[in-house]
């Protein structure tokens, strides 16, 4: 047989970005206001409900909380769940994000 083509089926490496960036699917992106976000306000690990609810696992459990917009699909669940309403969904500018 000739040299084996190891790309004849949909086999990927489990790694961030292996399936392509999914962040450009969305029209809206979450923006966090650190003045309202509980971990930032209290200065210690707390709340993190956005991290818990995010279906894409793109929210970090850090202070301040950050969201990886390369893979955020803009569903808005974090904004919906945030108790102090620290997260706002804002319209992305086409072609720039």
């Amino acid at each position, binding site marked *: 047989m000739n040299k*084996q083509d*190891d*790309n*004849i*089926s*949909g*086999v*990927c490496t489990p790694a961030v970005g*292996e*399936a392509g960036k999914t962040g450009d699917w969305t029209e809206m992106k979450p923006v966090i206001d650190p003045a309202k976000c509980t971990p930032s306000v209290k200065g210690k690990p707390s709340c993190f409900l956005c991290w818990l609810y995010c279906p894409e696992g793109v929210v970090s459990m850090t202070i301040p909380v950050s969201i990886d917009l390369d893979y955020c699909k803009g569903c808005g669940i974090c904004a919906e769940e945030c108790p102090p309403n620290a997260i706002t969904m804002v319209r992305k500018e086409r072609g720039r994000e």
Partner: protein
Amino acid sequence: MSDVRIITGNEAAALAVTLCEPQVVAAYPITPQTKISELLSEYVERGTLKAEYVRVESEHSALSVLIAASTTGVRTFTATSSNGLLYMHEQLHWAAGSRLPIVMCCVNRGVAAPWSIFNDQQDSMSQRDTGWIQLYCRNNQEIIDTVIQAYRIAEEVYAPVMVCYDGFILSHTMMPVEIPDAAEVQNYLPPYRPHTFLDPERPRTINPVFFPWRRQNADGVLCDGYMEMRRKLQKGLEKARDVIAAASRDYAERFGRDHGGLFWTHRVEDADIILTGMGSIAAEATLAADLLRDEGVRAGVVGIRSYRPFPLELPPVLRNARLIMVFEKCFSYGYEGGVASDLKASLYGTGVEAPVIDVIAGLGGRDVKTADLLGAVREALKSLEAGDRACRTVWLNCREEE
């Protein structure tokens, strides 16, 4: 020294599987396939087949189990019929798209409704576009030999192979079958080398969603996308044409039996009346051709062994034909029989001008005797001699509506 046994087609298939030593077998019983799954479970229980036998709750699960097993790099087998095959339909696409060399026997049976347990080939024919190679057998010897060849073909082109044979007519009929020597089968069938497989040391994600365009992987390397994968599947099946022919030739050299590669012929050299078909009806057609020869009609038979990939070499064989009769046990509703469609398409622009008469026969197990085939040929010849050169579809042994 040869080991000849008088066995059914299902036993021939089960013995062939044992000789190929799959590591995982998963099957769900359905008439007329049931005996294969029963025999294989017996062989596993007895220890003559060292495989994991997975008892599943459905055909969809049977093929799902094999897809998972094959993805870990082992040889696998299943068998089914009729509505069982249809229940597997989604997984047929998954197996082919994942380029897994799974081998399955489809013991051909009519498809409901109305309910039928009897033979025709509607089940496998309706799976034409799933990316599986389809080989059709005409007798029990060909079943045992074709299952062995199927593993070699599947593992060389990385595509699944469906070995199809007629329910009851072959599956439950006993014939003398020469059992190939186990050591010789080992020589003929090299150990399976998977193209990619799941390995805890090298974690892989299999078949995530693919976007319409080619994709960059995490290392920034541009990888093939969905459309390239699909094209490679077609390339694989195109390559299978040579692989099927070579597998058959090599088998003939080692075991002394040549069933043909993609097709076989019977008395076609000077024939101008060609009878074609797949499976046992094509074997029946050889008897009809011999009887026509006795009457001075120059008849011959072209048996199609590989339906997918479809043989491209038929036009030269049919060059001198005045009349082509296709006998087939399936139908594409709203048009005509699938074999006739493909055969006519393959003749387009090749200069073969003979009318093609598509004879739909034996649906739901309706008996097809040699005399019935002869009658259809005589009828077609009469029309031809009266100057009617139209292609048409005829339903054999079927009451016509008033």
